[in-house]
Every structure is written in structure tokens, then in C-alpha cells.
């Protein structure tokens, strides 16, 4: 008989009922021949049954109101853009939450100017993301026009990132003024109305291809990087671990121009 030897993993999988029927039968016949091991396995099965029995009542309890998923979804929909308050305060004070960005900029001004770009993105987000009337100048339906406009003004081809895989739809975009000249802003939202802003412009100085740099301050988080002569930044009111893969996606797409 060319049976594979029985492993410790097989014994645990036997206890957890995770074996294919054929392997299960092999383990069962092994246990019949080895009563000492069978005793250990039986003890593990008893443990498992006792644990399940002891905890079963928790899963039978009615779900308390604060764990009602419909309520949680509902209250999230009604929540206004949280970032606005924080950003308004930053803009008014010029410090506070923006201190993070500003400090980065003071510390790392040149060599690559990414922090300046990130700061511009935070200001842009603060002005346009809370705007319910006209957050973008050219809507997503006219994205070809948008692409042509910003590419002309930035004097190089700019591609509008597609964030559908991340669950964000393009709302549209506009040209915005920065202290380093015009920049292209693209805005995205998801089903809950959470908005993300991508800001891109030529980097005036410094070495191209700056690696991605995280930023997180108050309710706004961001990533900035440069590919070739174009600088990019993504800002939003989400944790950085969620923004990171989105930033990676943007960078990947931008490289395919």
C-alpha cells in the first residue's frame, strides 16, 4: 500500500473535519491501530466540542441595536464630509493640521519639491472637495475634453487615472493655480460620497522619479511622488493604508502613458 504517511497536520485536520473523505478514512484506520494517538485526538475533539458549546450562546443572542448593520450604513450616509471642518480650520490658521505638510515642506523643501505639491493638493482638496454645487469644472462625461485641456496647459500628455477598481468614480476635473504654475486636479467619489483628489503638475526642479511619500494629518491623508517630470499626489479623508493601494494604482496607470 503506497499510502502517504499520517502527519500531525492530518490529525488536526481530522479534528477540524477539514479532510477529504478519502484521507479522513486513512486517518481513521490509522487511529484504530494507534490507541494512544487516538486518545489524544479524542481529547482534542472533546476540547473543540466544549469550546463550541461554551460559546454557542453568544451567537444565539439577538444582535444589539448598535450592531445593526442597516443602522451603521444609514448613519454613514448621513454623515457630512468630515474633512471640511478640519481643512477650514487649517486654512484659517495656516498651521494646525497643515503643520504636518508644512513641516515636511520646511524640512525637505528642495530636493524634490514633493512636499510643496502635497501642500497644494491639501489646499485644493479643502477648497473643492466640500463643494456641492460645482466641485469640478469639466465633468467626467467630457473627460476627453478635460484630458486635452490639461495636457495642453501642462505642456505634456496627462492621463486621467481610472479608479473604478478601487471603487471610485471620476467626477471630473479642472485646472488649478499653484505657486509652481498650473496643475490638473481630478476628483473622484464613491457610493457614499467620499471624495478623493488627484493633483498633478510638472515638477519645476529637482530630480525626476521621486519615490512615493506618505502624509497624514488631521482628517486628510496623502501620498506624493514623481514619475519623470510630472509630480502626482493623492489626498483624501481615508486612512493611509487604504489610500496607499489607490496611489499605487494611479502610479501604475500613469506609467502606461
Amino acid at each position: 500500500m503506497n499510502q502517504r504517511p499520517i502527519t500531525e497536520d492530518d490529525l488536526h485536520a481530522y479534528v477540524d473535519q477539514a479532510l477529504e473523505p478519502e484521507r479522513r478514512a486513512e486517518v481513521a484506520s490509522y487511529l484504530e491501530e494507534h490507541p494512544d494517538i487516538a486518545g489524544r485526538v479524542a481529547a482534542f475533539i472533546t476540547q473543540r466540542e466544549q469550546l463550541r458549546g461554551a460559546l454557542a450562546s453568544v451567537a444565539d443572542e439577538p444582535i444589539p441595536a448598535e450592531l445593526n448593520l442597516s443602522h451603521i450604513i444609514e448613519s454613514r450616509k448621513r454623515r457630512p464630509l468630515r474633512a471640511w471642518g478640519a481643512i477650514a480650520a487649517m486654512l484659517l490658521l495656516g498651521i494646525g493640521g497643515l503643520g504636518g505638510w508644512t513641516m515636511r515642506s520646511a524640512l525637505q523643501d528642495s530636493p524634490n519639491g514633493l512636499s510643496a505639491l502635497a501642500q497644494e493638493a491639501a489646499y485644493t482638496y479643502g477648497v473643492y472637495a466640500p463643494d456641492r454645487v460645482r466641485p469640478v469644472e469639466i465633468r467626467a462625461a467630457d473627460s476627453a475634453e478635460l484630458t486635452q485641456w490639461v495636457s495642453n496647459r501642462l505642456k505634456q500628455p496627462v492621463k486621467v487615472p481610472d479608479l473604478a477598481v478601487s471603487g471610485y468614480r471620476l467626477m471630473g476635473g479642472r485646472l488649478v493655480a499653484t505657486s509652481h504654475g498650473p496643475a490638473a486636479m481630478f476628483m473622484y467619489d464613491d457610493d457614499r460620497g467620499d471624495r478623493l483628489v488627484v493633483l498633478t503638475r510638472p515638477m519645476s526642479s529637482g530630480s525626476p522619479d521621486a519615490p512615493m511619500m506618505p502624509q497624514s494629518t488631521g482628517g486628510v491623508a496623502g501620498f506624493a511622488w514623481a514619475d519623470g517630470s510630472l509630480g502626482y499626489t493623492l489626498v483624501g479623508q481615508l486612512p493611509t493604508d487604504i489610500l496607499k493601494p489607490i496611489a499605487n494604482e494611479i502610479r501604475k496607470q500613469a506609467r502606461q502613458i
Partner: protein
Amino acid sequence: MKDMLVQVEPLIPALRRYARALVRDRAGADDLVQDCLERAVSRWHQRRDGSVRAWLFTILHNLAVTQFRQATARGRHMPIDDAGEQELVSAAAQEHRLIYQDVLSKLARLPEEQRAVLLLVAVEDLSYADAAEVLKIPVGTVMSRLSRARERLQQEMDGVGPGNVVALRSLK
């Protein structure tokens, strides 16, 4: 959103059970589950393909671990009294109550990482691969932790007074 409701809602009882077994305090456990559900709602679109169950347990587990670490950092140690067990098993049939309290208080003596793997696999029926994903460890490590958890729990159970051993045997 409807899609999320359909996929997440049926798992809430299991999430509560795992949280309760880990933190052994009803209010604290439900707070963790609430936090987990809020994050799940806000991150639903960022979720990768794969098991929704494993994804939710990952969020919950990370929250619980963060809470343990914060509690440890503040110098608070987890209580090893039986209050949690009594509350947990109060709904169980009389003849099982002592056995259940016993196994839960023995479980509480296991290191946190062993407790987590045993609960995910033996109680929550996560596959070994899903448990590995939740705990961010290789499957081989899941197996060795599971093995250590079971041996350790058995030692705890064998090492108790004769009265309890009789009670355990009477269940079989």
C-alpha cells in the same frame, strides 16, 4: 451596499462570538465588533476578492490585538477571574455550565496568539488558509500554533483537581 448587507450581516453573530471569547467582556467585545462593522462599511469597496469572512475577521482581530497592546502598555493586565465565563455560559443547560466555564477559564490561560488560532479554526470554522490570512502568518505557523494551543489546553485540563476531571469525562 445591498450586496454588503447580504454578505456581512449573517456573519455578525460569529464576529460577536470571537470578540467575546477574546476579550471576555460583553460591552468591550461589542464595542470592538461595532468598530469592525463601521470599518467594513467604509472600506467595502477597497476589499480584495476573496473570503468576506476572512476579511471581516482580519479587521476584528487587528482591532482586538491593538486593544490588547494598548491595555498592556497602560499596565492593565487581562483579568483571569471567572466573571466572564459565568456570564458567557449562563444560558447553557445546567449540566454543561460547569464544564463550559472550566474550558473557557483554561482557554483564557493560553497565550493570546494560541487562543486566537484555536478560536478561529475550532470555533469559527475558518479554513487554515483563511486563519493564516487573518493572523498574517504562514499556514505552517497556523498548524504549529494550533498544535501547541491544543496540547497546552489539554495540559491545563488534565492538570486540574480530580473533581473537574470526573466532570469532563462524564460528558463523553
